[in-house]
């Protein structure tokens, strides 16, 4: 809102100001409550959960549920905790993020700064790939991964995430490089630099903020993915989101809510951390990914 409207309308209304803060505060509670409930529940013993207050702070804080979630919780028939699945997700996300970001950067560069006939069509085809419901590709993908011997493996998931991430990463970099003046490339060409030299020495270094946005976006997407994980992985090779779902929805034995909550927090922690540390870039990615072009 402009300074003038603010000065003219808002500052005069002290009462209105209080109402405004009260409403905003209520929404803070609304958004934070689930996280609060998760945290306190994960720190309670099962007995206290059954008998104590739902919203109350734990009477005695215990990290048992956390230890169990990490080390011994049963995912399906195996009872080794989440740790293996956590590392599966790490081993899947890191290469997939790096590869798809690099490919997106080169694509964006080639499509904007070396416009060849058909470049726009290629971009449009890639962009469209971002919007398909993945249900339409998971069956053939599953068969192909099987044929390639990658079914149920981490490299298979990396391949899937790279392939379906290219559209977005290319979009991010294209939107940035299109704002870089063509004269920069012309100047470097006159200086004697070629396609790759210009990319590595000039355009990639100046696109650092876009790299950050893309890496964060891709990391969040890939880490949080469930559909590909549940469709293309099995047993001990599953990513953490799938393992979490298996714990939460297991129908055997006593329901350990504190364990579920601890497991959920563990699964959510990496992306939450990224969000807290680099929220600005995260929001930029969100809006760039939604308000297309």
């Amino acid at each position, binding site marked *: 809102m402009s300074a003038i409207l603010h000065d003219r309308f808002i500052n005069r209304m002290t009462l209105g100001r209080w109402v405004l803060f009260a409403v905003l505060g209520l929404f803070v509670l609304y958004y934070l409550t689930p996280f609060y409930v998760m945290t306190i529940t994960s720190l309670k013993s099962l007995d206290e959960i059954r008998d104590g207050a739902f919203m109350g702070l734990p009477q005695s804080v215990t990290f048992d549920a956390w230890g169990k979630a990490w080390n011994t919780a049963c995912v399906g028939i195996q009872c080794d905790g989440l740790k293996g699945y956590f590392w599966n997700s790490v081993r899947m996300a890191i290469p997939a993020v790096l590869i798809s970001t690099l490919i997106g950067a080169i694509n964006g560069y080639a499509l904007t700064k070396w416009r060849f006939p058909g470049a726009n069509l290629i971009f449009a085809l890639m962009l469209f790939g971002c919007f398909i419901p993945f249900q339409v590709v998971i069956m053939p993908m599953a068969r192909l991964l099987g044929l390639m011997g990658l079914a149920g493996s981490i490299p298979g998931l990396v391949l899937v995430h790279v392939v379906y991430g290219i559209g977005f990463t290319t979009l991010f970099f294209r939107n940035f490089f299109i704002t870089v003046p063509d*004269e920069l490339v*012309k*100047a470097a*060409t006159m200086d004697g*630099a070629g396609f790759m030299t210009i990319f590595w020495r000039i355009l990639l270094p100046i696109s650092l903020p876009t790299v950050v946005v893309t890496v964060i976006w891709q990391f969040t997407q890939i880490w949080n993915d469930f559909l590909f994980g549940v469709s293309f992985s099995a047993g001990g090779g599953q990513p953490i989101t799938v393992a979490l779902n298996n714990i939460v929805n297991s129908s055997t034995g006593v329901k350990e809510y504190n364990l579920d909550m601890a497991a959920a927090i563990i699964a959510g922690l990496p992306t939450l951390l990224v969000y807290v540390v680099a929220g600005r870039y995260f929001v930029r990615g969100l809006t760039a990914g939604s308000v297309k072009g």
Partner: protein
Amino acid sequence: MASLEIRALTKKFGDVTVLDHIGLVIQDGEFLVLVGPSGCGKSTLLNIIAGLESETCGEILIDGRAVNDVHPKDRDIAMVFQSYALYPNMTVRKNITFGLKVRNTPGPKIEEMLAAVSDLLKIGSLLDRKPAQLSGGQRQRVAMGRALVRDPSIFLFDEPLSNLDAKLRVEMRTEIKKLHHRLGTTIVYVTHDQTEAMNLATRIAVLHQGRIQQLGAPQHLYDHPDNLFVAGFIGSPAMNLLPGSLSSSDGGLYFRPGDGEDLIRVDHYPFREAPADGAPVVFGIRPECVTLPREVEGQARFEVELVAEAVETNGFDKHVAFAYGASELIGRLPAKAGLVAGQPMRVGFDLSGISIFDRRSERRL
């Protein structure tokens, strides 16, 4: 240093002809300015000379050698861009030496060349800054440094001053002029600003609709514009152009403006070809030749009573808009001339430097 020749150069984007059979010979050491309104093809021409865009047909020769298929980096040309195009991630030092490093110039040689250029342009204190930390004028200097350091045989400038404020533009103009005197390198310089063109060029090529309208020394273009476009484009305020016709009576040749009654004697005008009686023409007279009667010297003169409609003062003189028949006529009067808008006054035309054009072909008669 080198000469540059362009032969029958044509550039088409689809069906649109941007450059139409351009022919130009630029001598070694010349400062040629390509000037024209936006969209006239001047920047395209420059890019083709640089090798950044390809020609549809025609030839480009540097020192007599065709370079059409030579990569820009091997043409021995350097270019200064409108946006300066400094590499934002590199310091000034790296910006300047990037081209040398890419070409594997030995380190000591690079240092030597860098020192020479930073001395010449007085940018020694800026070497470790990034472009974002520089002012417009400083960026301009660095951009020139990057071009100079390679010691190319031809310099190309693409509207290098248009992003600077008015005062700095004048300063840098002088700077570039001095640089040309000192280095004597062949320069091709593109601008849309005719004042800049007049100030800098040894020769000007006026480009319009993909063709060279006129090529010549600045003063020649000013005094003898070849056609109506050049007449209107060169000079500020622009030349007054009055439509009318020629008529001979009493043994003299006269210009009769529009449907007016005035007869302006043009016997002295060096017609290139004998005009027909009653021929429709456009009569061109520079604003400085429309002034107070006492300021006009010489025989070729004309006096008329006109009403001043608007007066603009700019210190050393006044620009006055007069109504003359259906046309408007701009005159330049001495600053001290007492005049009031809306009042009729005597105005004198100095006819020694007029131009007359054929109204149909728009060419100079």
